[in-house]
Every structure is written in C-alpha cells, then in structure tokens.
C-alpha cells in the first residue's frame, strides 16, 4: 500500500461532550491528525446505523462515533442506546467479515481535549495502516 494514503474518516461527535472536547483540543493547540471530517450531532444516540453505513459505502475509510461518557449523557441515557446500536452494527460487520475495525466508538468529555487528540490520532493511524476501504473500488456496489 502506498505510504501517501490519506484516509478519509467521518467523525460523528456529540454536541455536549465530544464536540466540545474537540474544540478544547484545538484551542489547547494539540496536534490532531487532519483526516477526520467532523459532523456534529446533538447526541450519539442520534446516529442511525444508516448514517454510518452510508458514510462507509460512499467514501469513508473509517467512522468514529464519540459521545459523553456513560452516565454523563446530556439527555441522561442517549449514549447507552448509542452503544447498543453500535454494538449491533459492529457485530453485523464482524459476522459478515466487513472489516469491523473501520468503525469505532469512544467516549470523550468536554474537558478531555487530550483524550480527543489521542483517540483521533490512534484511529487515524489504524485506518492508515488498514489502507483504503476496499468497498470503494468494488464495482458491484
């Protein structure tokens, strides 16, 4: 795989925690890899599996979902539901051997700028290592 591969990662960040965490990482001048396209959602439970699948099938090499830590959801329970949905999608991808590692869920609070940077950098490295999403070159999709 060519070393100049620049992954295209879609990040769904919850408005109350992770988006603010990303903001903090930025204003604290932390180094964050530039491959993540951020989509702000009101809650991680807003994310329907279709959104994730559409991203993966239409051009993303990876999808990151980030929300408040369990117990800290702005809407009290949203992230618990989000985790179940994510677990289901991941299990489906696993069963069908569709590279489940391209999906990731993480909790980042508004004060965790450092954690945000780490999560994004680590995921970016992993996706870079995995290479381009084979779905995109499959003529049958």
């Amino acid at each position, binding site marked *: 795989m060519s070393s100049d591969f620049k992954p295209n990662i879609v990040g769904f960040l919850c408005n109350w925690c992770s988006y603010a965490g990303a903001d903090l990482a930025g204003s604290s001048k932390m180094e964050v890899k530039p491959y993540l396209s951020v989509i702000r959602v009101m809650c991680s439970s807003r994310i*329907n*599996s*279709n959104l994730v*699948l*559409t991203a993966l*099938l*239409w*051009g993303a090499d990876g999808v990151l979902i980030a929300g408040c830590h*369990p*117990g800290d959801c702005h809407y009290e*329970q949203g992230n*618990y*539901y989000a*985790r*179940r*949905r*994510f*677990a*289901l*999608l*991941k*299990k*489906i991808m696993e*069963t*069908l*051997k*569709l*590279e489940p590692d391209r999906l*990731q*869920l*993480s*909790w980042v609070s508004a004060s965790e700028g*450092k*954690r945000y940077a*780490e*999560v994004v950098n*680590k*995921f970016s490295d992993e996706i870079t290592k995995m290479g381009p999403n*084979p*779905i*995109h*070159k*499959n*003529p*049958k*999709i």
Partner: protein
Amino acid sequence: MNSTGKEKKEKTATGKILSVEGDLRKTIKGLLKKLLKNNTLDAVLVPMKAPETESYAWVLLEDETLLDAADPLPPVMTVQGGRALDSITKQGDVYLKIGALMRPCEIRAAVELYKLNQVKLEHIHLISIDCPGALPLKEYMDNPIKSKENFEKIVQKGDKNEALRPVCQICQHFSLLSSPSTEETKASSSPDTENHSAADLHIGFFGGNGKKLCLTASTSKGKDLLEKLELSQDDSLEYWKAAGEKIRQSALKNRESFNKEWQEKIGGIENFTTALDACINCHNCMRVCPVCYCQQCYFDSKILENSPETYLQRAQERGSLRFPLDTLLFHLGRMSHMVLSCVSCGACEDACPMSVPVSQIFSMVGDQTQKSFQYVPGTDRNVPLPLQSFLKDEFCEVEIPCECDQSLLGKA
C-alpha cells in the same frame, strides 16, 4: 394419566389429549368450530386455500360453517401471519375475541410487532401449532399437486427434510412443546411466568403418530380456551416434549453447520456482494417482512435521491457506479434495523423474484447477533426489544479505551 408435579413449571407439565378422528386437519378445525360455537371466540383467523387456484391466504371467519374450507396446515407461507394480524389491529384494539391459528414463527413475529406497538394482543388469542415447515413458494407454484403430496409425507413423518425451505430445516421454534430453554439460549426472561411463551394455546401433534393431539395452555387466556374446549383427558407432556426434542436436536445440528457454511460463503466484501449480485432492488423482501413495520421506509424515501452531479462525482471517485444504486446499503441498513427481531420465517426469500438467499443470510446474521444480545425474538412478551433497553455496564468491549485513561476504564 395425570402426573403433575414432576416438572418445575407446573403450568406446562400437563396437557390435554385429543384423539384424531379421521383427519388431522379436520380435528384441528373441529376445535376452532367448538370455540366459535360456544362463543368463546367471536372470530378466527386461519389460512385458507383459494377455491379455484392453489394459492393460500388468511381469512377472518365468524361463521363456523365456513371453517370447512380452511387449512390449518398449509404447505406454503404466502403471507406471514404476523403481517395479517398487524393489518387487523394496527389502528387499535379489536373488541371481538379473535383466535389466530398460526405457525410458531408467525406468532413470534406477532409478538415482536406487539413489542413494537404494531399489533394489539389484548383480545387476540394466539394459537400456535406444531409446524412441519413450509415449501419454497416458487417450487410449490410450479407443481402444486406434487408438492402437496410431498408435504403430506412431511406432516406424517414430522421430519425436516430437504424439500422444505432452508430456514425451516434449521428452525428450532417449530413447537412450543420443545422450544429452546432460556438457559440454552442464555436469553433473558421476565420474572412474570404468565407471558413466557409467545402463544396462548399450543396444538401439538408431533409424537402423536397422526392419532393424537396434545393441547397446552401457557397463559390465562389459553387456559380459558382449553377449559371451554372441555377436553377431559390429561397427559404428561414429557412424551410429547421428547418427540419434539428429537426433531429439534437434529435441527440444531443443521443450524450449526448452516451458520458455518453461510459465514464462509458470504464473509468478506467480495463474497457478500456476490451473494447479493442478483438483487434488483425491488424491496420485496422488506415489504413482506413481518418485522419491517415502518410506515415510511428510509430506503423508499427521497433521502437517498441525489443530484446528477453527485452521481457523476461518485462514479468519478470510484471509477464506476452500479445501478440499481445502493443495494448493499439497503440490505445492510435493513439488517441493522430489524435483524434482532428476525424470526427466520423465510418470507423474504419466498418473495424475492431473483432468488437471492435473503432469508438465509438474515437468519445467519440474526442468529449471531441475537446471541450476542442474549435475545430470542418473539418469545417472552415482557422482555423489551434490545434496542429499546440497555444495561449500564455492558458491551464495554466495543468502546475503544485510550492510553491516557487506562485507570479510568480499568474494568474494561
């Protein structure tokens, strides 16, 4: 004959026995007739063969004399019973007592729909029946007479042979008398034993050698029906359970090899797209699916329609763009929406004009995902749908911990 007390669950320990007089179907219809006659039920929902053709449909009957034309054991499943029930009660509860005689997978679909608030069950009496399986719709329609002969043999013997649809050959929920235990499936169940089983009343005939029927009630509604049937002969269920269990164990073995086979066959993007190659995006599978209940499906909506520029751009990026568009998105998206409720009824595959093995793919994925959620769809009415409930401490393995807070997530 009475031997209660042997089993822990006293409620299911005994059943009522009925001798088959002449014909199995006739005896079963006789039971429904009796319930209609003594006003225990106001109407029954039963499968019936069209008088002039070989197709089957559901009929809601109030007149017991019309029951003669009904067929409680149809060779095919043209319309999923859960769907039929859904049409009746979608707009609200009925105030007539309806008895619905359906296959266990149809009952299970109805229970899933009940949990989704799409079927009201307050006045519905769910009556399940030992299911010999169903023949593939297309093969049946090609040669109905011969198919029926084959099907009769299956009914007599009770074995899940290769003429049946693939999902029927691996089905373990064909009888309430021998369905998998909660320990076996590691499924959660509610403490309320009343609604443990999907159906109110079950009619079993596997093990009766065509001479006897065994009726068991698992809810108060079912007990009421059983009482009104005035059957006098009690029998221990052990013998009946064993007969079903034998069939179930061989189905279980089939299921294991089935899962392995399909996982190999469709695992990976190349294989998966090959399996779905023939799909013409007609969405028939979604339309006939009993648990695909959404009034407006995401995949029928305008949301996936884009400007020509978008398509050109996508084609440019990928090198090519296939039409019908987004078949993979449709199947994966639908799967992620309903697969935890999938009862492996096989309606989707019967409806597919291109013979895509949809039900086999969904059944395999359904089995795996349901296990990871410890959920068996359509059994216990009081166990909430997996995506409508959660535990605070679960699925930690799907979250990615971070080096900076190992101590925080030390438990994971």
